[in-house]
């Protein structure tokens, strides 16, 4: 998707985030951007670089290390009519502000009988690789999916990153906007003018007939690679990107599963009570499901994230594991198969030099 056609502009994910921010800040004076390190020379991997110069320190500012209070600041400013974007360079740090997010941001509109709105965007980056280990690697979206009042989006490509960020900024609710570090350097066609990507609308990234693969965030990329590997053995996988997890477009997934008869959800997180559990549960309880289907989940190994390379490899799903799993699901009677290792080296392993 979004491979740039002739003459079309290609943009990196990180630059798409920055462009969305600039366009919204220009359009709407009530938007402001803050968080640790948004104003330094690295600018959150470049996604906020130069914005303080452009919009001034009243609209773009770094903060003390006080995640809990800063989340309250976002909520309070939003109640007063502003539209804050609060940035966390690692999603792990939102564990410090769960009280504000869950007890206040999610509930304020309801608990105050509609008298206030909390239009905040919480940008969180999921870390991976270069031995960052247990506390710089977590993807905690399911904790937020659990809580009514919050929205959760996890765009997997530059096009959707821009469109979702604009949609999130314009949304009148708290939105967890979750980015994967390894997507930052990926590029695709990104229109220059502002646009929104609708929340709650999944996308079929590649069609197929034998199984439905649902990928979350960077796992969309990995599912697409797995699909390529599988095509060589004649297995045709459909790949779906939910884009937003709350609201979740379960119908798109259901329709696909009804066509393919199988479902594998691949998450960049733990599966236990995760997004993948929710998707399986919704499919399995749906009265619209035609007959029995085979369903499975893949995600992090059920352990904290280890930094040592061989452990990391065992910890994360990858195209090879996805392809092998799909093969076992689609051809349960065949003997086990896994793709040629040569072909499965992750592109980021060639490009990415960690850690930040």
């Amino acid at each position, binding site marked *: 998707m979004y491979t740039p056609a002739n003459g079309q502009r290609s943009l990196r994910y990180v630059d798409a985030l920055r462009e969305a921010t600039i366009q919204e800040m220009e359009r709407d004076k009530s938007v402001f951007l803050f968080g640790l390190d948004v104003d330094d020379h690295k600018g959150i991997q470049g996604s906020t670089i130069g914005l303080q110069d452009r919009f001034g320190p*009243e609209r773009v500012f770094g*903060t*003390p290390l*006080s995640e*809990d*209070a*800063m*989340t*309250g*600041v*976002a*909520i*309070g*400013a*939003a*109640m*007063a*009519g*502003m539209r*804050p974007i609060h940035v966390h360079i690692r999603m792990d740090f939102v564990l410090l502000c769960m*009280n*504000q997010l869950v*007890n*206040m941001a999610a509930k*304020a*509109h*309801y*608990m*105050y*009988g*509609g*008298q*206030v*709105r*909390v*239009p905040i965007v919480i940008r969180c980056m999921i870390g991976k690789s270069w031995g960052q280990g247990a506390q710089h690697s977590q993807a905690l979206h399911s904790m937020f999916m659990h809580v*009514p*009042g919050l*929205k959760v989006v996890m765009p997997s490509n530059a096009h959707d990153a821009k469109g979702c960020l604009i949609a999130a900024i314009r949304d*009148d*609710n708290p939105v967890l906007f979750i980015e994967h570090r390894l997507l930052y350097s990926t590029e695709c066609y990104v229109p220059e003018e502002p646009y929104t990507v609708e929340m709650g609308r999944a996308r079929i990234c590649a069609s197929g007939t034998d199984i439905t693969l649902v990928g979350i965030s960077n796992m969309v990329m990995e599912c697409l690679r797995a699909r390529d590997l599988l095509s060589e053995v004649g297995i045709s996988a459909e790949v779906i990107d939910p884009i937003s997890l709350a609201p979740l477009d379960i119908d798109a997934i259901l329709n696909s599963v009804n066509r393919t008869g199988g479902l594998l959800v691949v998450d960049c997180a733990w599966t236990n009570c995760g997004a993948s559990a929710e998707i399986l549960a919704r499919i399995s309880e749906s009265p619209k499901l035609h007959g029995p289907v085979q369903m499975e989940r893949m995600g992090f190994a059920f352990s904290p994230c280890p930094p040592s390379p061989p452990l990391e490899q065992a910890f994360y799903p990858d195209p090879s594991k996805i392809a092998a799993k799909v093969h076992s699901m689609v051809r349960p009677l065949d003997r086990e198969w896994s793709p040629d290792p040569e072909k499965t080296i992750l592109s980021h392993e060639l490009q990415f030099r960690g850690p930040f």
Partner: protein
Amino acid sequence: MSEQLDLRFLYRKLRQIRRVEEEIARIYPSDKIKSPVHLSIGQESVSVGVCSALRDDDVVAATYRGHAAYIAKGGSLSRMFAELYGKVTGCGTGKGGSMHLVGMDKYILGSSAVVGTTIPISIGYALALKREGSGRVVASFFGDGATEEGVFYESLNFAALHRLPILFVCENNAYAIHSPLKKRWASTQLCERVRTYGIPAISIADSDVLEIRQWASEAIAGLRRSETGPAFLECHTYRWREHVGPNEDYQSGYRSIAELQNWKEKDQVEAIGVRLLPSERAEIDAEIDAEIAAAVDFAESSPFPGPEEVLTHVYAS
């Protein structure tokens, strides 16, 4: 405003709060109010003193023990009682309850039942006011217990760093539930600590409403005028009733009735009341009782929300 008019105004507010709380306590055993009530009886002067120094378009933030601040800032009594009754006409349409009163028309930010939680929210609101540049300020109320939560210090630092127009008001009633200060505070140097952020801080010992208002007025004038940033008031005060619920609890042993007596002698409803003519006072009292009776009537006669309402307002649209 003449001094006498002013005293009438203060008395009306103090008495209004006292009487509302007494009325809640009276109704409570009937189970018509099914919501945990944290009464402000005894603590009225803090809210009244501070709010009487505010403009209508200034903002207050408070806690589950927030009836006093809500009333002092002019929140609707009818919508308050309706909320306690769980009625759809309540200030939270029956979705807040006693601990979450709100009145955005009067710039009363919704209160929270998780201690400390509204403190950073109030500085966020103050940040927006500062950007707006119209001289409006926020008064943020919280208890002594809230100063033990880390977010309080994070908030002081940020508010001072950004010189936000906010008055922090600690209602120090010496207890968090049943736990006295000495079990919770390594030292009582709260104001000294706040000053290390460059924030001027004053401690007021006797909950004198005029003194509170005077200090609040000076601080607020400073906040409006200049760029000097936040100010802090610690107001010693006393909760006469139990932590939650309508009753007294001196029999339970965690505090003494002598302590209560000492504070009752400083009762501000009475202290201001005696400065009015008996006839003035009786007139105000009667007005308040009528007002409360009307509010209770409103609550009683209002409908409950329909069950389908459970799923509205989850998301704003």
